[in-house]
């Protein structure tokens, strides 16, 4: 019977709806090693066992003590005095008998020292509660063996999660929000000829209100460009004009297709071609394929060729279209046209992949059709994550970043605890116990921890920095306790990261996550990232800076992103590069740099000066940082921005989560608010669906919006809810 699913399919139904059968298969093939099975480790593993991970191996050399019963659900009265690894393993096995569960009674620290080859058998190691020395060693071993590592630590009310892997490439990154690939401003011939068969001026009202918005917008974008010397609407005024133009074609107020067209008009304004993020992946040195290239990079090489040949600047078409008001016939035809183009693009890509494989002496069919197909469908969503080694992070810290974080209101707690988590390990090395681990001698431990932390900061090169006494006191109070709830929280995060790494879906976290259970102002410290990791953020900031440069009157002066100094400078530089003054050049004109800095200064009430010559990125950095030149203003910018956030704090954009400055768009039913930037990009906050029909009211300012208004909507009787559905209990 078709509808009778297998038991395992039913059991995993709720997660199969997230990562699908491909993701589940990857999970079932994964072999996971856990180091230390206190609550942090056993909770992390529990979530994976429930989800049906292939096999687990628990490494722990300790025996269950009475104290363990108070924080670990996987041990009970009967297991006191027994091997902790064995007891935990037995309980975890009970949760899911399709998981192969093993244990090794050995201290992880010893195993790391004596049997480095032990780790190469695993897909991934979850390393919990390791001190710094063991972390560094394990990381080195696993890098060499190409085994992924997730480090997790619970310490009193704080915790840490850090992913470590040389390179993690993702095809199916499943972003929350992504612009549909509709090519409204760049239609291919078949789409054009379909659009031409439909007459917008059809006299039949029923037919008129069932023309899909894709058709309406392709036609109108074409008409617009013809009358605007080949250009699409770009300024705010033009965009509004375009929307009015679409509106003018409505023949009655109940035409949902036209309302959708107006709402989706921003898709016409979206830039053509691939994003800067995908461009960056194509420019990566790995995109020059060699016999050792991974499948991912072989396909990127093919993508690169595709974009500059058949794609004419675009990636392969995604092939799917969102639901929209339409007659069934038009919609199905449109769907077929998009699918056919996606299929044609796929065939071209497949051919290119095969040729590249041949070129690098690999079996031309070694990358499967479904993989290439998935790559094509997700070509605009590719992600590459690279992580520093733990050793590099510890021994070559970015001094300025540590100092800035310690001085920043939002980051000082997280950075303080980051430093203290390293300091307690030093403390242990010196005193053979954690500060506050035993009762008594608390004051001595506090002063010793303080001394240890300050000397650590000095060793890192942060001589002037201090840590708040409150944090040091709390750290001693915690006394290396492993609280169950903190363990469950950070262990839970670790298991999410494992799932993302193993299924190669979604995007794993970058940087070091510091959990702050005191006020939940946890942070990911982005400090330790390579610039590539910033692709997404860079793009977003680029756009914002450009909106300032464009004098578009968006009213938005803050750059509103928590990105730290070096990156921000890089961003500013790239924003100027992106401005199509000198295409293909890796330099920007000094005039542009001046202009940018003038803008910054104008924004923050400073002034500028300069002359005409070309500068490199490094020179630009120097300019920004050189106080004599007057360009050492980045820290001021950061400070002023945080003030900005405080000043404008009351209305927050539901998408970018930054205070709304200038125009405020409020959705009339769902009542979420958007800033003009996110509004113009057509974003909606999670978990709203982009395709939904939203109605926004624009408010000039907050004060105006607070005025009570009597709103009358046009009656849409057919939109009346037809059923009340209760959510399924989980």
């Amino acid at each position, binding site marked *: 019977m078709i509808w009778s699913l297998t038991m395992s399919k039913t059991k995993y139904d709720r*997660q199969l709806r997230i990562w699908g059968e491909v993701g589940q298969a990857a999970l079932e093939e994964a072999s996971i090693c856990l180091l230390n099975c206190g609550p942090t480790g056993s909770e992390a593993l529990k979530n994976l066992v429930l989800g049906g991970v292939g096999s687990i191996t628990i490494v722990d050399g300790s025996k269950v003590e009475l104290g363990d019963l108070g924080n670990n659900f996987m041990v009970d009265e009967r297991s006191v005095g027994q091997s902790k690894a064995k007891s935990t393993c037995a309980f975890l096995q009970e949760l899911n008998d399709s998981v192969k569960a093993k244990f090794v009674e050995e201290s992880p620290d010893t195993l790391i020292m004596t049997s480095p080859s032990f780790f190469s058998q695993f897909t991934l190691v979850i390393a919990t509660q390791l001190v710094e020395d063991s972390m560094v060693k394990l990381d080195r071993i696993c890098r060499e063996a190409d085994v992924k590592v997730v480090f997790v630590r619970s310490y009193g009310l704080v915790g840490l999660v850090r992913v470590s892997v040389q390179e993690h490439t993702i095809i199916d990154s499943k972003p929350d929000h992504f612009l549909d690939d509709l090519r409204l401003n760049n239609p291919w011939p078949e789409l054009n000829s379909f659009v031409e068969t439909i007459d917008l001026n059809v006299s039949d009202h029923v037919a008129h209100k069932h023309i899909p918005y894709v058709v309406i917008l392709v036609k109108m974008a074409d008409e617009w460009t013809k009358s605007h010397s080949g250009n699409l609407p770009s300024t705010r005024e033009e965009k509004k004009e375009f929307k009015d133009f679409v509106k003018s074609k409505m023949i009655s107020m109940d035409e949902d297709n036209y309302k959708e067209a107006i709402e989706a008009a921003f898709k016409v304004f979206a830039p053509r071609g691939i994003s800067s993020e995908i461009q960056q992946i194509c420019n990566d040195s790995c995109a020059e394929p060699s016999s050792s290239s991974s499948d991912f990079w072989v396909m990127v090489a093919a993508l690169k060729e595709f974009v500059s040949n058949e794609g004419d600047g675009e990636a392969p078409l995604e092939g799917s279209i969102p639901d929209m008001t339409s007659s069934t016939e038009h919609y199905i035809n449109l769907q077929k046209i998009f699918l056919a183009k996606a299929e044609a693009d796929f065939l071209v890509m497949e051919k290119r992949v095969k040729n590249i494989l041949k070129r690098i002496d690999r079996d031309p069919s070694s990358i499967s059709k479904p993989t290439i197909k998935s790559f094509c469908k997700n070509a605009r969503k590719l992600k590459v994550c690279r992580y520093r080694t733990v050793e590099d992070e510890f021994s070559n810290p970015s001094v300025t970043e540590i100092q800035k974080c310690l001085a920043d209101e939002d980051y000082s707690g997280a950075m303080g605890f980051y430093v203290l988590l390293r300091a307690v390990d030093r403390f242990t090395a010196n005193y053979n116990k954690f500060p506050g681990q035993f009762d008594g001698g608390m004051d001595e431990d506090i002063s010793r921890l303080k001394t240890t932390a300050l000397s650590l900061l000095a060793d890192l090169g942060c001589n002037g920095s201090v840590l708040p*006494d409150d944090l040091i006191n709390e750290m001693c109070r915690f006394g290396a306790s492993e609280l169950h*709830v903190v363990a*469950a929280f950070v262990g839970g995060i670790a298991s*999410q990261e494992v799932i993302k790494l193993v299924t190669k879906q979604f995007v794993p*976290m970058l940087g070091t996550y510091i959990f702050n259970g005191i*006020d939940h102002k946890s942070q990911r410290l982005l400090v330790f990232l390579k610039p590539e990791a910033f692709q997404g953020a860079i793009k977003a900031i680029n756009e914002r800076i450009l909106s300032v440069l464009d004098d578009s009157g968006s009213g938005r002066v803050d750059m509103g992103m928590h990105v730290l100094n070096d990156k921000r400078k890089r961003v500013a530089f790239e924003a100027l590069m992106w401005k199509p003054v000198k295409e293909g050049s890796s330099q920007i004109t000094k005039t542009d740099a001046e202009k940018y800095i003038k803008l910054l200064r104008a924004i923050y009430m400073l002034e500028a000066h300069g002359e005409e010559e070309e500068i490199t990125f490094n020179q630009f950095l120097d300019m920004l940082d050189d106080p004599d030149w007057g360009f050492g203003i980045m820290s001021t910018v950061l400070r002023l921005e945080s003030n900005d956030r405080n000043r404008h704090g009351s209305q927050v954009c539901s998408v970018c989560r930054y205070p709304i400055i200038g125009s405020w768009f409020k959705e009339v039913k769902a009542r979420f608010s958007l800033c003009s930037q996110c509004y113009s990009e057509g974003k909606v906050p999670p978990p709203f669906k982009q395709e939904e029909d939203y109605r926004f009211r624009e408010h000039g300012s907050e004060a105006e919006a607070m005025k009570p208004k*009597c709103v009358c909507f046009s009656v849409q009787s057919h939109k009346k809810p037809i059923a009340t559905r209760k959510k399924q209990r989980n």
Partner: protein
Amino acid sequence: MVLMDAPQSKSRDLDKLLLRSGNLVGPGFFPGTDLRDDIREYVRVLVVGAGGLGCELLKDLALSGFRNLDVIDMDRIEVTNLNRQFLFRLEDVGKPKAEVAAKRVMERVSGVEIKPHFSRIEDKELDFYNDFNIIALGLDSIEARRYINGVACGFLEYDEDDNPRSETIKPMVDGGTEGFKGHARVIVPGVTPCFECTIWLFPPQVKFPLCTLAETPRNAAHCIEYAHLIKWHEVHGGKSFDPDEPEHMKWVYDEAIKRAELFGIPGVTYSLTQGVVKNIIPAIASTNAIISAACALETLKIVSGCSKTLANYLTYNGGEGLHTKVTEFESDKECLVCGPGILIELDTSITLQKFIDMLEEHPKLLLSKASVKHGKDSLYMQAPPVLEEMHRPNLSKPLYDLMGRVEKDTVHVFGTALKNEEKQSSLTKLRVVFKEVDGVADMDTATLRVNSKRKTPL
């Protein structure tokens, strides 16, 4: 600092937090063994829901020093629960969730007492909820959250100056998850926004226009909803559709397939049919673990003051990277549920029947079939029939007399309210003030006055 317990204690780790003084703590934190023992002995926590979040919450609370727990859930265990509800095994399928969850946690954590309630939350007396110091919500329906929120806020009393009386505050912690995302929040009625103050945080449900289903279906979901909402009634008449009945689901699936073939629409699968019809929210173990842990930690902090409290809404998104954010929402002083209540001025002569009729016309209430409760006394009940009959004689009596001839007091009214064109159960608080009692007569008799500056968008 002198610590009483030997290092080998079951509360080895928790003691560090509860027995030691700290700098970053709540205002009423008195560390010591008394605090730890009081939490064990006197604090009662109710866990609402024994599903993905509820199972985790019970475990987390049991390992956070709480020993007196209750859990309420009306559902029975299903196979699809097993990928995350770790207290259940295959052989438990069909048994009540609350009972199995309570048993499993008690088996593993000695000393903890968990009382299961296999029941609908609406079937419990209001007093049942008042017995707990704090309520932890592990629910996934907005309706259930609204109900519990209404009950908890119903206990809240305000003083003359509209400040909440602290002894009447019933704090709640609430969690919710979907896929890799979730939220955890702390609700201290009268102090932080209640569920109703921020109801707009929840998105509207996806609904399809009827004409799309009937005339222009475009995707698989349209075909499925056609079979589920239109075709089922055409063919089966009065027989109601039961999503848990496999034969019903299979019928809808077959009909959806037929319709999809008719229009050339791809993509109807059995799994999608279930997803659309049951409005299934994807769920995984790790997210539930994270959110529940945050809720349990906040429960411990509210009860003990051992650290600062979450102010007041934590969002978690682990899909694209990892983002956590704390937002401090503000409460709506005019909130119908947690605010000081709707002030209603009445003549002392108004009968209970007249009062109930007025509720139906009140623009902010639109409450029909109202039952009225004054403190612990029911003044009128619409159901069950036995109780209705018992209270019927009250209808003709003046409300003033029924309320003990006091100048002003709070009453709770429960009935069916019309909200967003939908009928919903609603529990609302009214502050009734009788005119002329204090000598100030108001000529404008028999009208309900609303103490509100804000207009209601309808």
